[in-house]
């Protein structure tokens, strides 16, 4: 065993001891990376991939009279999911969607996706969306679900774009939609 790995183990043992004193299992999960999670964490996105991700997300959920995907933190969320949540297979699938968008930008318009005018970015993603959902492509469905999850379960997406009350406090079983206004985020 090398010095550095034994030091890590000692630190871990100390940390575990401290955690047992202060708070048990809940505290533990905050500090100690689980073996499974450790093996799941892949490398992050490159700067170029993240820039592409930002623009793809913004096409799917653009800024209108309410915030779009970037302001709502969707690209940051997806990057986090790729780094912390995805299996190696999911990571490859999600990055594959970005790569496909980039390829189609080049093949159709001869330029990188982020260099395209907004209407051309829309054309690329709109066509990709139509094709991949028609063929029920699991990789694209996963990607789109994460974009929507990232947006509609963000604070701005849930409470400004849709409706969300942490504590509704009442059940009204049958009311005119016009009184409620928008869809419930949860």
């Amino acid at each position, binding site marked *: 065993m090398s010095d550095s790995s034994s030091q890590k183990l000692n630190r871990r043992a100390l940390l575990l001891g401290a955690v047992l004193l202060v708070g048990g299992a809940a505290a533990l999960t905050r500090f100690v990376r689980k073996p499974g999670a450790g093996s799941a964490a892949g490398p992050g996105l490159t700067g170029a991939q993240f820039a592409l991700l930002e623009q793809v997300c913004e096409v799917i959920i653009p800024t209108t009279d309410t915030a779009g995907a970037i302001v709502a933190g969707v690209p940051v969320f997806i990057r986090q999911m790729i780094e912390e949540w995805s299996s190696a297979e999911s990571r490859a699938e999600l990055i594959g969607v970005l790569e496909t968008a980039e390829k189609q930008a080049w093949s159709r318009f001869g330029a990188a996706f982020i260099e395209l005018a907004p209407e051309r970015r829309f054309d690329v993603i709109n066509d990709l969306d139509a094709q991949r959902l028609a063929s029920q492509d699991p990789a694209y469905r996963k990607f789109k*679900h994460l974009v929507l999850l990232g947006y509609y379960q963000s604070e701005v997406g849930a409470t400004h774009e849709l409706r969300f009350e*942490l504590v509704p406090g009442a059940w*009204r*079983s049958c009311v005119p939609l016009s009184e*409620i206004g928008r869809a419930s985020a949860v």
Partner: protein
Amino acid sequence: MDFDAIVVGSGISGGWVAKELCERGLKTLVIERGHHVNHRTDYMDFSAPWDVPHRGMVPEAEEAEHYAVQSTCHAFNSATKQWWVRDSEHPYSTPADRPYRWIRGYHLGGRSITWGRQTYRMSDYDFGANLKDGNGIDWPIRYADLSPWYDRVERFAGISGANEGLEQLPDGQFLPPMALNCVENEFKKRIEEEFPTRRITVGRCAHLTEPTAEHIALGRGPCQLRSTCERGCGYGAYFSSLSATLPAAEKTGNLTVITDAIVERLDYDHAKRRVSGVRVIDTNTRQGRSYQARVVFVCASTIGTAQILLASQSEYFPTGLANSSDTVGRYLMDHLVGIGAGGTHPGFQDRYYYGRRPTGFYLPRYINLTESADVDFLRGYGFQGYSGRSSWERGGYQAGVGADLKQRLRYPGPWGMQLIGFGEMLPRADNRVTLHSSRKDRWGLPLVHIDCTHGENERRLAERANRDAVQMLVAAGFENVMPAAEVKPPGHSVHEMGTARMGRDPSTSVLNARNQAHDVQNLFITDGSCMSSCGTVNPSLTYMALSARAANYAADRLASGEM
């Protein structure tokens, strides 16, 4: 003696036994194998969606490596992860081609934190079913024996619901019901017209709609319609051991709780026909300890209880404590699920609802009761169901991006409805929990081996339940109606029952009519293992009633010196 009574397990059954015994003045020790949980402060119920780790999704590799079985439960997510065991650390075995889903959590309060909170009384159709068709053995009790105990536990737990006057779903002591929504009311009207003996009522559930003084005194408040119940509820609005029974027991001054202590075995004194000690392994120190009491209740959950009895071998009980009948571990049942149907409703586009109601509706059993023509199976099924409008998730599988997508998802989508069947499973001796012959867990205890399958009756029942569900949705004007995809493996409904069944005859059952072991006079078992048949309704309310009844019986016997 260390204590008057020992209760193994702190879930729904153990919590009830502890409360009743403590209130009868008995010094009671509750032994929980899992860790301590602080009511309120250990819950994630005040986390908004954007504050929940990974928006509720558990990392894929972690899930695959550690939660392969537990993650199949609908209530498993990143905000409830602490309530499930890691399968990697708590293995069990099954035959390779016969999966069984043993879904569970090891912590104070057990599955009373994550349970579905649906609460229905069993009826005499259920208690008489085994006698009528000859499968299993006759229950040693009938509805009249349990009815006053259902009253008692419903009042204390706080059950919201509506009385319907149905023989197969007895009325109870209910707090005000929650209301059906517009589409559910329409469905109720259409179904009750079309099928005169089918009835739809709002789901009876262990939620405080109007807390009583007794509930408030325990620090419990009214339901806030959040529907984050499986994370734990800081309002104490739904019944759990942590919100209700253990605090009530604590108030008496008679309760001692120890956590992190796995019961290894029960020692037996043959001369006195009594459990003489409860041996535990401290999971922190790995040291063994033993506790003594005048009476011992095992409420370790259906499979856990069987495991403890089977492991408690002695000269007089070579195959396990209280097992002279060779029925310990046998007759494992679980409600048949993965049956039913779903569809969408084209109407009511201008109607919606406010709040997140934590229950649905219930369509109690009719098959083989009021409708038995062309039925080629025994017993029956009931349906739980709900209707709601779809939200942003539909954008994930419908084509469209950009401003149009955003505008479309701003408003709710069509109404959908799910009918979720719960079918009765026959008790069969071959459906069985045993101890593995060689593999042991990290504590050196033999692994549980579960061998359980559905039979021909279950297959026929599932087929008919799907057909009925589709027919009802179509009859009520639903579109895009699809039957449930596949019957789930046994264990999936988390209603496991039957491994130490009650019966009249000591040669064919483990427990008598008071949940007392035929073979061992100071041993009682009141969790799901006592069930002689599984009926069609969610079983927890019945465990509560049986637990309260058995605890008071034991207290009576101790007081009179008869035990």
